[in-house]
């Protein structure tokens, strides 16, 4: 019997994914032999960088991990440290933090929906082509993103790598009058977010159904951002402090980033997981928009994640307006912190999914050990599993088409690979 012919296809860069990494696919005839998403993580650079630093430096350092979701890193960090120091920030600070997180969800999701993901459904190569073919649509996306940016700028001091978050609260909180200046833009954004849901709800979605185990925070009171237990669609519910007992990280030879498994199996974090586990706590306007586009709460087609992200933009804008309307400035911008040695853990919901932090601190407030589990690392094994399911349906296609479809599927997860890596190339090998 003749040896099967061997072909190797290389696509230089996986386009429109946040950051870069590499995907290697090996096909043996009709069998998908290997799928390796290689993430070249700067070997836990930030975890090492944090060692020996004072706890007060942590929020500003971890904000540097990602230019798109710095608030998420800050939030998980301060919650972890506050849980160790027994700090209760009170309702007003809590609301402001939620508002800040709303800003990040809006800007991050708007960027992904309009500039990275939507081009896949419109037959254009990227945002630049969209700017040429449908400039009004792209302008709407840019203005929607800006509605998130202005929240970050006002509360965080600047839109990228905000500087006001500290353990115990904020270094500065705005007066009511300042916050209210955001309302006009946010009310426009609420209409734009509704239009966005209707727009993406009308896209033509490839038929691809995955068998997901969803993992997200779950709170009785609200759609999760800063608080809640770790829940899974397999029935798990546990305090965030027990995250590592259920979601285990392990090293794969092909990647310097750690893979995560829930009880030995891949799982998915992110908007689809949040929706599945928290749809009862969506705001009424979001529930209505979801019904209008005919979306179920269990979204098992990854391509439809663009609808879920759009719904979460609407959720965040509508909630931001409510927070501002009800806002009363706290008596002090930050609660007093009494340092004690020990270990603190917390998880919050980054735009891309659950983000877990653990810190061991000594009695002087110096960090002895830091552990950060970003959402993209958690989704890495799940993305590989999706590729194994997708590839058998593509075997009769040209290699370039296969590469595009793989890229397209990865984009559905909005991987913030720069949080965990630097380069992404796609290689398909047929043996």
């Amino acid at each position, binding site marked *: 019997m003749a040896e099967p012919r061997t072909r190797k296809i290389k696509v230089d*860069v996986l386009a429109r994914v946040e950051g870069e990494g590499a995907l290697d696919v090996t096909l043996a005839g009709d069998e998908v032999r290997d799928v390796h998403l290689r993430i070249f993580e700067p070997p836990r650079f930030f975890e090492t960088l944090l060692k020996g630093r004072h706890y007060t430096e942590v929020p500003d350092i971890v904000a540097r991990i990602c230019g798109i979701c710095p608030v998420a890193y800050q939030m998980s960090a301060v919650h972890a440290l506050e849980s160790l120091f027994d700090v209760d920030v009170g309702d007003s600070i809590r609301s402001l933090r939620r508002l800040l997180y709303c800003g990040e969800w809006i800007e991050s999701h708007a960027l992904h929906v309009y500039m990275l993901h939507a081009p896949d459904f419109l037959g254009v190569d990227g945002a*630049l082509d969209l700017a040429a073919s449908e400039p009004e649509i792209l302008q709407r996306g840019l203005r929607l993103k*800006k509605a998130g940016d202005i929240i970050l700028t006002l509360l965080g001091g600047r839109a990228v790598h905000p500087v006001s978050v500290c353990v115990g609260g904020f270094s500065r909180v705005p007066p009511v009058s300042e916050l209210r200046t955001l309302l006009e833009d946010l009310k426009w954004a609420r209409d734009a977010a509704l239009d966005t849901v209707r727009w993406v709800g009308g896209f033509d979605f490839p038929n691809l159904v995955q068998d997901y185990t969803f993992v997200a925070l779950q709170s009785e009171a609200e759609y999760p951002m800063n608080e809640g237990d770790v829940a899974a669609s397999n029935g798990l519910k546990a305090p965030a402090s027990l995250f590592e007992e259920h979601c285990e990280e392990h090293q794969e030879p092909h990647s310097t980033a750690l893979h995560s498994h829930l009880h030995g199996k891949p799982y998915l974090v992110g908007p689809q997981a949040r929706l599945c586990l928290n749809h009862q706590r969506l705001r009424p306007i979001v529930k209505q928009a979801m019904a209008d586009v005919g979306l179920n709460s269990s979204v098992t087609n990854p391509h439809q994640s663009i609808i879920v992200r759009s719904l979460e933009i609407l959720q965040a804008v509508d909630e931001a307006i409510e927070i501002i309307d009800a806002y009363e400035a706290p008596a002090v911008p930050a609660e007093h912190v009494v340092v004690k040695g020990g270990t603190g853990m917390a998880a919050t919901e980054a735009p891309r999914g659950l983000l877990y932090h653990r810190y061991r601190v000594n009695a002087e407030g110096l960090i002895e050990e830091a552990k950060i589990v970003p959402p993209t690392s958690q989704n890495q094994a799940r993305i590989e599993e999706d590729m194994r399911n997708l590839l058998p349906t593509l075997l009769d296609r040209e290699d370039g088409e296969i590469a595009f479809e793989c890229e397209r599927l990865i984009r559905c997860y909005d991987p913030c690979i720069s949080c965990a890596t630097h380069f992404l190339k796609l290689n398909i090998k047929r043996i």
Partner: protein
Amino acid sequence: MTGLVYVVGLGNELAGDDAAGLIAARKLRQSLPADVHVEWRDKPDWDMFERLGEDDVLIVIDAVMGGAASGTIHRFAPDDIAGAGLRHCSSHGLGLAHWAALAVKLGQPVRHMRIFGIEIAQAELGAGLSAEVEKNMPRLLLEVENAVQQSLAAEATP
């Protein structure tokens, strides 16, 4: 007649020579007239372009990796950089060229935009500026100052 003059330095101050634009802007804040809007940022964003009025001037200073000798100073107009390789954009990779290209496509007034780049030697975390970039920093500052003065002179012309 020119409108407002913006000078924006881009860079990551933790990443070696990548901080060159940011450091240049900080120095220029000391030497340029107070009515010139000087700022420094970790990365470019749409608001840099969105705020521009028809006659406004935008001068951007950034680190460049273009294969020239370290310390070489490059000068670009937006059309020079708003071209090649832009399909491979991401939100982390949405750099100056991408935003400038979008500005051109969406009709933002960038006719008075100028970009000054300095060829870098390294972008290592915690490394600080290289000797080559340090050596050429005064020349970079002088070129930007001259460009600003030309814009202000044009502004003074009725």
